[in-house]
C-alpha cells in the first residue's frame, strides 16, 4: 500500500512536469494577481483591514461557545433547526435521514468545501438521490468525477477545450445548439440550461456558509453566480452545513469581512451575491423553503481549538489566497495534495483533521518563504504553523529513527568549529571522489534529490572559511 506521503511525491513529480496544466494554473493565478491589485484600491489601508478581520475572528473563536449559542437561539426563534454534528458521520446521517423522511429525490448543492470534507454527495447518491453541484466550476469537476482543484476556483486546471469536450460527452442534449463551440459564454449557457431544470425540480437545497452571524442569527453566503440564491429560494428544504469556526459576533462585522473576502478571494471589491438567511419562509413572504436546517460541524475542530498555539488556523475564511501565493501549489497543483483542503492552509489543517502521523509530509510541501502568511486576510501564521507541525511530529515520535540519529549527529558536529571544519573537508573530498568516478546522481550520491534533475556545480577545494582567511585580511 502506498502511503499518503509516497502518493504526494509521485503526483508532484507527475504534475510539475505537465506543462499544459502548469500554463493553465499560471494563467489563472496571473489573472487573479492583477485583479487583487485592482480590488485592493478600495482600501486606504489594507493592513488595517487585515488586522480588523483578525480581531473579529480572534474574538469569535475565543468565545466560541457564547456566540454559537446566541446564533442557535436566534435561528430557533425564527423556526429554523440547528443540529450539532460531532463527526462527519453524524452530519451525513442527519442530512440523509431528513432527505429520506421528506421524500427528497433531487438535491441542488451550492459550492461548499465542508460538504467535500464530509463526503456528503457520495453518501446521498448511495441512497439513490440525484445530487447536482450548481457552481459552474464544481459542476465541471463533478462531471469529471474529480474533487475540486482549488477551494475557490474548482476547475482552475482545465482549458475551455477540456470543458467543451466534457460537455459534449456528458451533456449532449444541452450542448446541441453549439456543438463545436469552445466559446466560454456558450459553455456557461449550456450549464445554465442543464442546471435550470435541476433547480426547479429539486426538493432540497444544500449550501455551506461563509459566516454564521451570531447577533443576527443568520448564515451569510457569498457567490458570484447566484446559484445559492436559486437553491435557497426554490426547493422546499434548505440545509446549511457549516463548520463551528465560521461564527462571527456581529452583523456589522460583515461591512469589512465581505469586501476583504471578495478582494482576497477573487480580487473583486465585493462579490455579486451576499445573502443572509436565518429561517424558513415566514408567514406573508411569497416564497422560500418550508424548513431551514443548520448543521454545525465539529469533526476535529475542537481538537484544533484546544491547541492554543495554532488556534488561529480556525480563523480561515477559505478565500484561497494562500494557495495562489504558494510556489509549491503553483508547481504541483491542488490534486497532488490528496486532501480536501490544499495549499498552505490544507498543509497546516489536514494533520489536525486527519492525523499528524499520516499527513506530516505536508509540513514539508513548502519553501517556508512566508508568501502565504503575508497574503492571509485574517493573518494566520501559516508558515510558522508548518514548523510547529514538524516539531510536533518529532515530539510525538512520528519521525524515523535514522532521521533522529542524523539530526543528533548534525547538532554534535555544529557545536564545535573544529568538528564542523573536519566534516566539511570530508564531505567535499567524498563528493569529489564520487563525481570523479562518474557516480553523480546515482543511488550512492547523497545529493541525488538535487542532482537527479540538475548538474552539480564543481565541488570547491577550499572551504569558505579558508578563503575568508586568505582574502579577509586586506
Amino acid at each position, binding site marked *: 500500500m502506498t502511503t499518503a506521503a509516497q502518493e504526494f511525491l509521485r503526483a508532484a513529480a507527475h504534475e510539475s512536469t505537465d506543462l499544459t496544466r502548469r500554463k493553465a494554473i499560471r494563467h489563472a493565478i496571473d489573472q*487573479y494577481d492583477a485583479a487583487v491589485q485592482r480590488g485592493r484600491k*478600495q*482600501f*486606504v*489601508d489594507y*493592513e*488595517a*483591514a487585515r488586522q*480588523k478581520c*483578525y480581531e473579529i475572528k480572534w474574538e469569535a*473563536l*475565543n468565545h*466560541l461557545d457564547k456566540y*454559537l*449559542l446566541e446564533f442557535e437561539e436566534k435561528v430557533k426563534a*425564527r423556526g429554523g433547526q440547528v443540529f450539532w454534528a*460531532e463527526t462527519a458521520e453524524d452530519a451525513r446521517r442527519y442530512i440523509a435521514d431528513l432527505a429520506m423522511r421528506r421524500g427528497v429525490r433531487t438535491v441542488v448543492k451550492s459550492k461548499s468545501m465542508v460538504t467535500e470534507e464530509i463526503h456528503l454527495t457520495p453518501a446521498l447518491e448511495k441512497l439513490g438521490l440525484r445530487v447536482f453541484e450548481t*457552481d*459552474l*466550476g464544481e459542476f*465541471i469537476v463533478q462531471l469529471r468525477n474529480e474533487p475540486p482543484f482549488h477551494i475557490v*476556483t474548482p*476547475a482552475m486546471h*482545465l482549458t475551455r477545450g477540456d470543458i467543451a469536450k466534457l460537455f459534449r460527452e456528458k451533456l449532449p442534449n444541452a450542448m446541441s445548439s453549439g456543438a463545436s463551440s469552445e466559446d466560454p459564454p456558450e*459553455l*456557461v*449557457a449550456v450549464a445554465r440550461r442543464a442546471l435550470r431544470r435541476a*433547480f426547479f425540480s429539486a426538493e432540497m437545497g444544500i449550501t455551506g456558509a461563509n459566516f454564521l452571524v451570531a447577533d443576527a442569527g*443568520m448564515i451569510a453566503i457569498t457567490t458570484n*453566480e*447566484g446559484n445559492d*440564491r*436559486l437553491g*435557497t*429560494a426554490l426547493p422546499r428544504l434548505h440545509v446549511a452545513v457549516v463548520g463551528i469556526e465560521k461564527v462571527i459576533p456581529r*452583523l*456589522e462585522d460583515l*461591512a*469589512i469581512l465581505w469586501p476583504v473576502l471578495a478582494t482576497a478571494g*477573487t480580487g473583486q471589491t*465585493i462579490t*455579486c*451575491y*451576499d*445573502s*443572509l*438567511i*436565518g429561517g424558513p*419562509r*415566514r408567514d406573508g413572504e411569497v*416564497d*422560500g423553503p418550508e424548513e*431551514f436546517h443548520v448543521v454545525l460541524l*465539529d469533526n476535529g475542530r*475542537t481538537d484544533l*481549538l484546544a491547541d*492554543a*498555539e495554532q488556534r*488561529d488556523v480556525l480563523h480561515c475564511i477559505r478565500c484561497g489566497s494562500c494557495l495562489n501565493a504558494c510556489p509549491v501549489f503553483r508547481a504541483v497543483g491542488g490534486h497532488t495534495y490528496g486532501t480536501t483542503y490544499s495549499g498552505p492552509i490544507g498543509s497546516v489543517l489536514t494533520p489536525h483533521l486527519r492525523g499528524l502521523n499520516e499527513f506530516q509530509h505536508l509540513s514539508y510541501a513548502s519553501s517556508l518563504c512566508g508568501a502565504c502568511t503575508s497574503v492571509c486576510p485574517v*493573518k494566520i501564521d501559516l508558515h510558522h504553523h508548518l514548523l510547529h507541525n514538524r516539531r510536533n511530529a518529532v515530539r510525538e515520535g512520528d519521525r524515523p529513527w535514522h532521521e533522529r540519529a542524523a539530526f543528533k549527529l548534525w547538532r554534535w558536529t555544529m557545536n564545535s568549529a573544529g568538528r564542523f571544519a573536519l566534516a566539511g573537508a570530508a564531505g567535499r573530498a567524498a563528493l569529489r571522489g564520487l563525481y570523479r568516478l562518474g557516480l553523480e546522481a546515482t543511488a550512492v550520491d547523497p545529493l541525488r534529490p538535487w542532482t537527479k534533475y540538475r548538474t552539480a556545480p564543481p565541488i570547491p577545494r577550499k572551504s569558505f572559511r579558508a578563503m575568508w582567511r586568505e582574502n579577509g585580511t586586506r
Partner: protein
Amino acid sequence: MERAEALGRERVLARIRSALKAPAPHHQCASPSGPVFVPLANAVERFQRECAANSTELILVPDTRGAADALGMVLASVTPGEIYLQDAPPLRRMLGGLKTDRAVRWSNDGPPSESSQAAITAVECLVAATGSIFIASSAAGRGASVVAPVHIVVASEAQLEPDLAAALRRVKDRELTTHNSALFLITGSSRTADIEKILVLGAHGPRRVVVILARNLD
C-alpha cells in the same frame, strides 16, 4: 433520537469550553485607527461610478413620472413574455399608467414562474460605495431577484446609504433581521469566471440588473 442529539450538542459545547481554558496568543498591531476604506464625497456620483464598474444599468430620473417612463423604456427592450412584479403601492401606481400587452404576475399571486422575463421590485436600500442593492425577503421575496433574466429595481435617493457599514446599521435599526427570513445584497448581474478566468455575465441569475433611481418618489 432527540436525546442523542442533545447529548452530542452538550459534548461539543463541553469540548469547546475545555479547549478555551488555554488562552490563545493575541497579536497586536499598531495601525488600525484611521479609515480603512477610501472615503466617498458624493453618494450619487459614487453609486454611478460603481454601477458602471459592476455592469449595473443605472437610470437617474427626477420623480415618479420619470421613473414610470424609464420603466416603460426598459420593458420595451425585454424579450416578450411574462413580467413579475412586487406588489408594492408605488409600483402599482407606476404600472397603472403604463401601457403593456404583456402578462403581468403580481407577487401576491405567488412566486415568479420559471418563464418570467423580467422582475420588478423595490429595495430596502442602495449602497453607494459598492454599487449594491439591498432587498428583504418579506418585501421582494427570494426568487424575484434571481429567477428572471432581467431584474429591475425602483428606488429613491432617500434610500441611498453611503457604505456597507451604514446599510448594516440600517438593517439593525429597523430590526430587519427579526422581520425577514432572508436579506440579500446584490452587486451587479450574476457572473462567473470559472472557465479560464474569463468573465461571463448571466451565470444562473439575471444577465441584466437595472436600477431606476429617482430623486424623489411619491
